């Protein structure tokens, strides 16, 4: 299915980037189009293309005007836009037949690993076991990676376990913490301050600069959380840190 090019907006972000906007709200269909653009760019680079950043409804393409314009001989923005329009005309969004495999994220819930699990249970009127059950049930879609290295924006959380941010953010949140903020859930890849309600922690290393793909999760991945024991956490943590 080709992209409905009439609904696509193309506009500059400064003098070195072009934004391709494929929709106005978070939607699985728009995400599919973002993925299709990314797949195309991976296969069809052009001189002066630096990199691209996919987000919920946009793909931002960074370019070097000096190279794209062939050392100042042509209009680089027009050239990049023309490239993108050609790409959109060729793009087939339905061509991806293989569904993404589900990546499991082991999490030890509650206790010192998830000090706010009791609060989330109390706030939602559920038992702690029910919060865990509802958090581990869905398959979450990684819409984008941003905010911090390796931080996944996940879609698909059960709204019944939604909880407000903490009024006073924590100074330090340990790496691997799994939290809830409003109807969002996520995992902190590195130690940081933050206001999310922490319900558990994963032993996996979400971002490792020395891996070929530093981010464990990529845009388009499907994720499920799996409840583990503290012993399993410690064993997995040792494995992850020993890499």
């Amino acid at each position, binding site marked *: 299915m080709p992209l409905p090019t009439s609904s696509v907006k193309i506009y500059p972000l400064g003098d070195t*980037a072009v934004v391709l906007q494929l929709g106005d709200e978070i939607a699985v269909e728009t995400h599919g189009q973002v993925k299709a653009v990314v797949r195309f760019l991976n296969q069809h680079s052009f001189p002066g293309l630096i990199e691209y950043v996919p987000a*919920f409804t946009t793909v931002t393409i*960074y370019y070097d005007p000096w190279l794209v314009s062939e050392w100042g001989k042509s209009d*680089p923005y027009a050239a990049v836009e023309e490239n993108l329009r050609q790409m959109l005309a060729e793009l087939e969004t339905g061509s991806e037949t293989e569904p993404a495999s589900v990546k499991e994220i082991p999490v030890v819930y509650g206790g010192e690993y998830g000090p706010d699990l009791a609060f989330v249970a109390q706030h939602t009127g559920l038992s702690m076991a029910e919060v865990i059950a509802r958090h581990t049930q869905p398959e979450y879609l990684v819409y984008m*990676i941003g905010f911090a*290295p390796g931080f996944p924006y996940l879609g698909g959380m059960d709204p019944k376990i939604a909880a407000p941010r903490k009024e006073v953010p924590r100074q330090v949140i340990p790496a691997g913490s799994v939290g809830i903020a409003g109807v969002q859930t996520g995992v902190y890849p590195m130690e940081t301050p933050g206001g999310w309600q922490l319900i558990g922690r994963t032993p996996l290393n979400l971002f490792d*600069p020395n891996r070929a793909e*530093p981010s464990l999760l990529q845009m388009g991945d499907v994720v499920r959380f799996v409840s583990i024991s503290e012993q399993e956490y410690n064993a997995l943590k040792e494995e992850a840190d020993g890499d």
Partner: protein
Amino acid sequence: MGIKVEKPGLLTTVQDLGRYGFQKQGMVVSGAMDSFALRLAILLAGNPENAAALEITLSGPSLRFQEDSLIALAGANLSPKLNGTPVPNHRPVFVRKDTLLEFGAPVQGCRTYLAVTGGIDVPLVMGSASTYARAGVGGWNGRALQKDDVLLVNLPTSEQLQHWQEKCPAGEPFLVSSWGLSRDLLPAYSENPTVRVLPGPEFALFSENAQETFWNSEFKVSPAADRMGYRVEGPVLSLKEPVELLSSAVTFGTVQVTPSGNPIILMAEHQTTGGYPRIGQIISADLPLLAQVRPGAKLRFRQVSLTEAHQLYYRREQTLEHLKRVLHLQSKR
């Protein structure tokens, strides 16, 4: 053997042109705040453009050279001295073994770059030598320099050094090159610059009053100004109506406005994505001006067209191309 850090200074980090290709994984670009000054220092030192140099901030370090070295400084004037004698920016300088480089009062600008012929030898992480200290990635052990660190330096070729070793009088700790860059090659650095800006993707969402205010008012750089971004203070910039935006890419020079109505200008260590409305985008050619201002500086924003921004981009690249040719000839002498 290399460069020993006797005093680290306020914030001294290894930087190059940045870490590209991983923003889609949330990794920030980092790299030099004033990439033009970085490139000048690197070219003057005779290094390839992707080499790493030290970014020195306001209050400079004390560095002891453990080998005969060839260096160049570019960017801010932070009163550099070799064994107590002032040395100029923007010229190659031969430095004998055991000489001490120190900095004094910051006279102009905020950041200066020290390039050493042969290049600073740090492992590349994700393809770059840039330090991103918040994540402990890159540069010297993922952090700013500290006292007693010894930076490894790839030694210059004996050919590069021999000429200087012969020319530098015996007993003299250093020799400044007889030629240097003309000042008119440098950007129009200023304590209180006017920077040129393209309207941002959400410019039209701001009230007419805010749009006009943005172009016609003075904004003060607050003390919360670092490699990640500058908070600036001025008249409040209001939206026509409140909006909830979805996170999308932001970049070096993006001017975003927080719900309080105050702008934040994103700098070299900007996050890859953000959700605040983007009122403007500072043009690439003027980012060095911004990199050199200090907290308290007064900024003005002037609108230009995308075509003009690209022309200014080309002019900067042409300057560097020209410089490369001249330096190439110089090295043949």
